[in-house]
């Protein structure tokens, strides 16, 4: 029986792991299918993590976190979790993708979110063949070529700046005439010569051949079509929360979730189920920042410690 099971190994899960183990819980397992680090490891630059001055990649920012946790006894199990359920006696059951289970007194869900699809024709077909959600991973394949970026938020603009350094030209396609990104980032994009802003426009169809994408057709608000012949299309249109572990076999949710699928929590990260906490991007009103996810993880860990202490010692 585990004291605490942590589902997910991004900043929220890792911080929960650090605080639960350092705070005295002995049997804590963090489930993450591979090397921990989370979605931030896709980011080409992080400038707003307190105490880390200058530009750093998301991968470098996260590199030391797992070791710090393991020093205090956090166990990392490289399994994907299919589902978390709860027995009548209040014990949680963790269902792993190899079909085995593990029981836990408390659970911290930190499964984060995944890049959302923009929804244009050919997007799924060409994922990995020209359509990408990671500029740091795949920008390299478009060195000295033209690429298209879809989106208007911080990620879309930051990754456009990154791609503009590698590629000859970046077409930034956004459905509105204004960006949601930080004003400073917008200014940097506007001042970059090889970024062309394609505003009030939506992607319609990506096309290609057996080797991958050849171009993308977009339409503006006046129904004018434009064909951009670029082999790379990077999509940054927000995220969907990874809440499938909370879905029960009968289709109900283990705890309350809102209409967006985000887990409802209070200020202490308690869900509607005792002993179950949700942290980071998966919770409602998540600011989707590394520092906030880490803070959530610490809060939930402290709550889990007192919950488990009470269970074990009354």
């Amino acid at each position, binding site marked *: 029986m585990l004291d605490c099971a942590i589902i997910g190994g991004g900043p929220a899960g890792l911080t929960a792991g650090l605080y639960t183990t350092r705070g005295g819980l002995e049997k804590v397992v963090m489930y993450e299918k*591979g*090397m921990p*680090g989370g979605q931030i*490891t896709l980011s080409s630059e992080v400038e707003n993590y307190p105490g880390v001055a200058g530009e750093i990649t*998301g991968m470098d920012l996260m590199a030391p976190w797992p070791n710090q946790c393991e020093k205090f006894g956090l166990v990392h199990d*490289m399994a994907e979790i299919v589902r978390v359920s709860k027995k009548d006696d209040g014990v949680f059951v963790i269902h792993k993708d190899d079909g085995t289970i593990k029981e836990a007194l408390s659970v911290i869900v930190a499964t984060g979110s995944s890049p959302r699809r923009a929804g244009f024709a050919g997007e799924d077909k060409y994922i990995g063949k020209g359509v990408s959600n990671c500029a740091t991973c795949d920008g390299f394949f478009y060195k000295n070529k033209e690429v298209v970026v879809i989106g208007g938020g911080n990620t879309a603009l930051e990754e456009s700046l990154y791609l503009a350094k590698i590629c000859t030209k970046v077409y930034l396609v956004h459905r509105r005439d204004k960006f949601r990104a930080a004003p400073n980032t917008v200014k940097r994009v506007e001042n970059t010569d090889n970024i062309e802003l394609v505003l009030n426009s939506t992607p319609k169809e990506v096309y290609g051949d057996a080797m991958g994408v050849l171009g993308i057709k977009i339409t503006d608000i006046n129904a004018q079509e434009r064909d951009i012949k670029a082999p790379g299309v990077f999509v940054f249109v927000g995220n969907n929360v990874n809440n499938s572990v909370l879905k029960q076999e009968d289709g109900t949710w283990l705890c309350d979730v809102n209409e967006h699928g985000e887990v409802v929590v209070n200020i202490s990260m308690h869900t509607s189920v005792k002993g179950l906490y949700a942290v980071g991007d998966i919770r409602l009103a998540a600011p989707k920042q590394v520092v906030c996810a880490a803070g959530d993880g610490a809060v939930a860990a402290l709550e889990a410690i007192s919950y488990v202490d009470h269970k074990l010692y009354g």
Partner: protein
Amino acid sequence: MAKYIELTASNFDETTKEGVVLVDFWAPWCGPCRMIAPVIEELADDYDGKAKICKVNTDEEQDIAVKFGIRSIPTVLLFKDGEMVDQMVGAASKQAFEDKLNSLLA
């Protein structure tokens, strides 16, 4: 502990021509590649003598990446007797890789 095979232009064809072979296309700057790195290492040990577990550093071996139309990493290609039979784009769980390998070995 068995180690994965590092593939280059000089040993790619020779290594993949026979049996079941998993090839992980990766690069040092890629977060999701780093994520599956420990999984690939474990697979190399688990499948020692049964399947070849290999890696291609796309930064150094661009010709191989171009030959297979790799445009996203990590991409994992599966070969059986020299023929590419399956591909997986993005980070996946160890179980997902095992399922693919086991079905090819069956």
